[in-house]
């Protein structure tokens, strides 16, 4: 198989050796930015694998080549962006990591997962700091793509159920807490809020008229 591999985030780039060394993969074009992808003749390849890629791939590309990605949520409500942060803030400790079909739908408000189809899934542990969570993302992505590539081309697609509830993508101002917010939240809620915004993401912060106190790293101990 000839594969195009898209990844620019650090955790996603660590998946590359698994793809490159897979026995069913003969050649990999590794792209870390869109301009590299634009220079490829995608019809020369069998599969496009995106990992943590923010941009939509678009109609033209998804019609020329089969495209897949990994999506780190079980519930449809987290299909609109910032799935890691929103699940952690919502108190979800264990979720799913799935291979999804990366398509294009102009009318769809979802981020990438427009047709809600997935082929393989594994459990995803969302506990700990963001460094640990992203290690989980790397490890589970490797497992998922190994499974997919071994099964290819006999892939069975399943549809996850649609929800009316939507958790919209987070905005930079959502990372702000006032001192009153801090006082009204439990220690567990505060921990989840700050840990899901640890590096490499813009940190959560507490703001008053004097400035912004960015919380870079937190820990939590139950009594």
């Amino acid at each position: 198989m000839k594969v195009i591999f898209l990844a620019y985030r650090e955790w996603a780039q660590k998946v590359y050796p698994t793809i490159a060394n897979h026995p069913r993969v003969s050649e990999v074009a590794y792209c870390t930015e869109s301009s590299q992808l634009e220079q490829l003749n995608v019809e020369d390849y069998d599969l496009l694998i995106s990992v943590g890629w923010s941009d939509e791939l678009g109609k033209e590309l998804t019609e020329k080549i089969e495209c897949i990605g990994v999506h780190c949520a079980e519930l449809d409500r987290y299909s609109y962006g910032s799935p890691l942060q929103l699940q952690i803030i919502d108190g979800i400790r264990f979720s799913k990591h799935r291979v999804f079909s990366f398509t294009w739908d102009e009318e769809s408000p979802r981020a990438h997962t427009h047709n809600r189809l997935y082929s393989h899934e594994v459990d995803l542990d969302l506990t700990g700091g963001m460094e640990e969570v992203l290690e989980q993302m790397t490890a589970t992505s490797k497992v998922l793509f190994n499974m997919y590539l071994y099964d290819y081309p006999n892939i069975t697609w399943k549809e996850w159920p649609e929800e009316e509830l939507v958790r919209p993508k987070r905005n930079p101002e959502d990372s702000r807490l006032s001192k009153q917010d801090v006082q009204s939240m439990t220690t567990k809620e505060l921990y989840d809020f700050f840990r899901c915004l640890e590096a490499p993401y813009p940190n959560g912060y507490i703001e008053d008229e004097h400035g912004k106190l960015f919380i870079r790293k937190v820990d939590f101990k139950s009594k």
Partner: protein
Amino acid sequence: MMNVLFCGYREWAVDVFDSLINHPKINVVGYYKTNEAFLEAIAKNNLPKVDVALFIGWSWILDASITNKFLCLGIHPSDLPDYRGGSPIQNQVINGIENTKISLMTLAEKLDGGQIWMKEDVSLEGDTVAEIFENLSFASKQLLTRFFNHFDKIVPQKQGDGGSYYPRRKPQDSQITVQELEELDVKSLYNKIRCLTDPYPNAYIEGDNGDRLYFEKVRFVPSNSNSED
């Protein structure tokens, strides 16, 4: 040539001593990183003549038999006689002090009350205690280099009256209380958190059920700053 004993175990203290070990005006006759090793050497009474015993970041109280035997000097990270006693870095940072002095003093019976030999400016800025330790290390090297160069001309001065004394902080003092959350601005919260980063007991908020949220690393951007990088 001055015969000197080095006593220190904290990383920043070891860094200071290591940088001064080849100073041309001193002869290092002993270098101790634990109280046990130091006391054992004293008990064996096999040390050569010692002109100065230097203690940096030394946690153990020296017995009068030792301070009477040697000229024992220590570096205290405050502008003495202010902030005598325990946890001087934390108490200054929490009180909003950003620039202070380190004081080279005679270790005497009264805690941090001995004569002052020299002082050196030091910044208490930095997001972590590790960064503050780097500032302390730099200032201590400057101070001790001057001290070794001019030792025979320095006349130590008695500390003035007044100043302030603080007891050593306890782990439970790292709690950010509900009252502090209400009353402190975020800059003051930043100061409390940053001076309690590792290796000290981290600042924490405790919930009604006893669960604790610990703050391990923070950063502060004043409201008049153009950059959040």
